[in-house]
């Protein structure tokens, strides 16, 4: 009886959270005019009169004149997210190794500086960074999209926390065997940190796939846009084409759902790791 009640609550909440997505899917396959029928029956509104999957292809067609359109934005997003993730995970891992294992003058002061900037609002650094890009003539470039987001105090902090918990015995044994610091890093630390690296990879990739504020500032051309910005200019041009807008939005979030379902294990553990407040 109690079990049934629990399932009932869980199911109800699940339905509440899924309903917007059902509405999204349903709208995305409706014939364009059908969305403009006012109804007082939600079930009727949710069920498409006929299913038009071609709406999805149409998103590509009608945006093509916008600097290549949806396909181009998709590629841009993929490229930016992949490069930023690779850069961030690599540089963070190296820095985290230095912070957790290698003693050098000023190390702990620098780390404190890293910690200190983690609470700085993005808006504070965004303005000078924009001016820097402008000075460099890098507005509307992949450089501007990819390089500034590549360095993260948060990633360094997360990995350092993890590295600190790796027992040192293995490294000591390796040192006695004549293993250099770089070898220790690549053959001991990194393999043992796969869970943390996976977590950071997933978080960074998803964050950058959706990144909005920075690209909004440094981009003007349609052909350079990432998906969120592309979708936004699509919205600006066709703000009543709800079937296509929903199809486009759905295509944008689909990869994230896949990444999340595949990497869920890392995700959940990562949240708990991140909450171990220093």
């Amino acid at each position, binding site marked *: 009886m109690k079990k049934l009640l629990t399932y009932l609550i869980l199911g109800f909440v699940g339905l509440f959270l899924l309903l917007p997505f059902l509405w999204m899917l349903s709208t995305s396959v409706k014939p364009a005019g059908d969305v403009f029928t006012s109804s007082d029956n939600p079930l009727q509104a949710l069920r498409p009169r006929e299913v038009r999957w071609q709406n999805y292809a149409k998103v590509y067609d009608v945006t093509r004149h916008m600097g290549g359109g949806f396909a181009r934005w998709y590629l841009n997003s993929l490229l930016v997210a992949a490069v930023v993730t690779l850069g961030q995970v690599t540089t963070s891992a190296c820095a985290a190794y230095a912070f957790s294992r290698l003693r050098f003058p000023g190390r702990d002061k620098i780390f404190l500086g890293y910690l200190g900037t983690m609470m700085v609002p993005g808006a504070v650094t965004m303005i*000078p960074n924009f001016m820097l890009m402008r000075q460099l003539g890098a507005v509307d470039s992949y450089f501007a999209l990819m390089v500034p987001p590549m360095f993260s105090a948060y990633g360094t902090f997360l990995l350092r926390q993890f590295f600190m918990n790796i027992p040192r015995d293995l490294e000591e044994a390796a040192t006695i065997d004549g293993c250099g610091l770089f070898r220790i890093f690549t053959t001991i630390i990194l393999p043992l940190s796969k869970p943390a690296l996976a977590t950071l990879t997933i978080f960074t990739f998803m964050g950058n796939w959706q990144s909005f504020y920075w690209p909004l500032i440094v981009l003007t051309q349609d052909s350079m846009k990432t998906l969120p910005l592309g979708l936004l200019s699509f919205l600006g041009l066709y703000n009543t084409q709800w079937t296509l807008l929903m199809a486009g939005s759905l295509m944008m979030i689909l990869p994230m759902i896949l990444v999340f379902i595949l990497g869920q294990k890392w995700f959940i553990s990562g949240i708990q790791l991140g909450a171990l407040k220093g």
Partner: protein
Amino acid sequence: MALTRKGRIALAGGLFLLPNFLGFLIFTSLPVLASLVLSFFAWDLFTPPKFVGLHNFSALMKDGAFWYYGYNTVFLMLAIPANMLGSLFLATVMNRKLRGIVIFRTIYFLPTIVAGVGTYILWRWLYNPDYGLINTVLRAVGIAGPEWLQSVTWAKPALMFMGFWTVVGGYNMILYLAALQGVPPELYEAADIDGANGWQKFWAITWPMVSPTTFFIFTMSLIGGLQGGFEQAFVMTRGGPAGATTTVSYYIYNHAFVWNHMGYAAAIAWVLFAAVFVMTLLNWRFGGRVVHY
């Protein structure tokens, strides 16, 4: 040149740190200082910057729009307790060994995962007064729904409700779930022997035991809330109607990247930073004390 072992380690440390440190220096720490300096200047990007001392800050204090947008920001943050209660409630329901619980967890997490421009466009459509699903549902039960995003009264609640949908099953629920799993079952068993009911057990055991998590989530949400509100308002309402959904961070964006008031924008950003800093200090100062597990 022979280096001691210590020297070699120090050199390697420097080299390992260097790439990240350079990026950190160029794109984070120097910009923080640069924007502080900038906040003492008036600069429109086209004419040379002019030193104005504290003028930006004193103008800000007298800027009615700033206070209104500050009010909007705080108003939107009123949703935080409701969001947290929702997450805690969900976590208590889920803290049971049940078949299929992972599927529910996955579903609950979806809105958080995909939150962004895509879901903002989706909610704009859901809130459509004539054809959106929300007013359709309301009509079904005989209520004429408001104009939501076009209404000065309802635009903020609409964004808050969307926020609830986004976060209720996300990070905070996972944190609460972990906290609940850390509560020793003996406490509940002892309470059962004393004949406590579910409600009493919740207030006497669960609530105090998860209080460190509550505190952590609360301060993090405050920090996030102070800086928040730009993206969804930009996509869904453009800050309107009549500025009703413009937050402080949106105001910074407008000054910096629409009106080219770089110095003024930097000043607002620094005021925001100060507020966030105070929150963080409170978190550090009091966060440790309530931890008791």
